């Protein structure tokens, strides 16, 4: 972290204005809405909450969403690491272009991604027709959901890991080589360990994003209740039915899961990075 220059607060102007604007904005745009959800949740009795969350439709939607997100995150973890490594350590033609393209899913609107993916994997699509020959169906199944989640989360995985790879000291790998370690040993013991915190971050952000992804998923998902319905769609459906308590219950659960995951990752990282502390 950059050392922040110490400045006596009153020398530079703009603290009150800057802080005032920030607080106003954050309150109106972030705090109030979140508290709106909490307020709604507070009106739910525990019994109501359990009733909503234990309905088979909700449980199925959660299961579909979480398993697809987990699978997508796993794949993104592996390929994200690979991409980050290749982009940082190797020089090859078109590297700059590829590096820029990694951000495409982040810049592309989710609805656009959604229709693009479904048109690719639909039976009449370029990839879907090939898969169909093998009897494999991706569109309108759980697999389609997973693929859409992979698409939208690629940038999170790659961008979280890249800076950490840049920080690695190639001499440590050379040292391990002279000490007799083979390729696998060098990778696991000297390269992977220091990268773990950033991999966790990338994976965590990837999972949270996948869990909440809507636009890219609903076109390819099929959205059949009890089969291929994702949690965020169910929230929308309950909303349209004016069943705000149910919508809030599901939304609150998703939000809680995200928060727990991010906090857990943060804690794990702090532990992993204790070797960075310079005092005993």
């Amino acid at each position, binding site marked *: 972290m950059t050392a922040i220059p110490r400045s006596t607060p009153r020398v530079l102007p703009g603290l009150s204005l800057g802080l005032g604007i920030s607080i106003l904005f954050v309150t109106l745009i972030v705090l109030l809405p979140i508290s709106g959800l909490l307020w709604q949740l507070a009106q739910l009795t525990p019994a109501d909450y359990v009733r909503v969350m234990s309905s088979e439709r909700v449980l199925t939607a959660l299961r579909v969403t979480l398993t697809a997100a987990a699978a997508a995150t796993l794949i993104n973890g592996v390929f994200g690491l690979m991409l980050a490594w290749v982009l940082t350590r190797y020089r090859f033609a078109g590297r700059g272009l590829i590096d820029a393209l990694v951000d495409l899913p982040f810049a592309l609107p989710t609805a656009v991604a959604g229709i693009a993916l479904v048109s690719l994997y639909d039976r009449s699509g370029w990839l879907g027709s090939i898969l169909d020959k093998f009897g494999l169906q991706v569109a309108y199944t759980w697999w389609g959901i997973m693929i859409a989640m992979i698409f939208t989360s690629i940038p999170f995985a790659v961008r979280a890991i890249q800076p950490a790879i840049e920080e690695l000291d190639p001499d*440590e790998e050379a*040292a391990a080589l002279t*000490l007799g370690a083979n390729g696998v040993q060098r990778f696991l*013991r000297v390269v992977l360990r220091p990268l773990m915190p950033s991999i966790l971050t990338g994976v965590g952000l990837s999972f949270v994003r996948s869990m909440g992804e809507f636009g890219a998923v609903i076109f390819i998902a099929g959205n059949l209740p009890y089969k291929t319905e994702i949690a965020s769609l169910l929230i929308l459906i309950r909303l349209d039915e004016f069943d705000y308590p149910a919508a809030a219950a599901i939304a609150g659960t998703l939000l809680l899961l995200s928060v727990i995951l991010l906090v857990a990752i943060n804690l794990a990282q702090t532990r992993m990075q204790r*070797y960075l*502390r310079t005092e005993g």
Partner: protein
Amino acid sequence: MTFQALDIHKSFGDTEVLKGVSLSMDEGEFVALLGPSGSGKTTLLNIIAGLAHADRGQLLFAGEDITRLPAGQRHFGFVFQNYALFRHMTVAQNIAFGLRVLPRKSRPSRSAIAARTRELLEMIEMADLADRFPAQLSGGQRQRVAMARALAIEPRLLLMDEPFSALDAQVRQSLRESVRDLQRKAGVGAIMVTHDRAEAWALADRVAVMNEGHIVQFDRPEVLSSNPSSDFVRLLVRADAA
């Protein structure tokens, strides 16, 4: 066991860095490669270690041709200029690393590894710092750990790339003695790259003076001082405040 480098040539792109370098040393001997930057001494060391490859020439160790042998199999200890300690491992884990990555068959038991690690920690007088991380050590301490780590694998040859350059004068003095000590105790031959004449004089049995990709003179320090073979050597070895 003797080590020989024969007629080593190395170019980087259009620049020829080593122009036919030959060197031979006896078992247990301490050799210094002394020269200004750009003389090719670090390149030569890297080639000996297997971290770089010569365009032409041969490397022989105890009669065995190791020119094409991968670095991981040469069994030479290497001390890097910036030590390259594994940041995320403790001192003890750093030292034990070379032993823990040995193939199953030749790997010692965990207790044997622990014992050897302790032995080395005592040798470098850092037994109470075994669980520290490199970020928590001083420069001199890191240097000693780097030495111990290289010695742990009982190397056939010890290679050191400017091992003291990152340290201040006082620390350098005391470390010189302990490095020489460790090397003698281990009975292993050593090749050290340095640009510091006083260091080379203090530590080496023989000094190879390098300039622009050649070894211009290779002899005992006293001989270099009394019989320099060229003006370059004479100016280089002129006694100055160490």
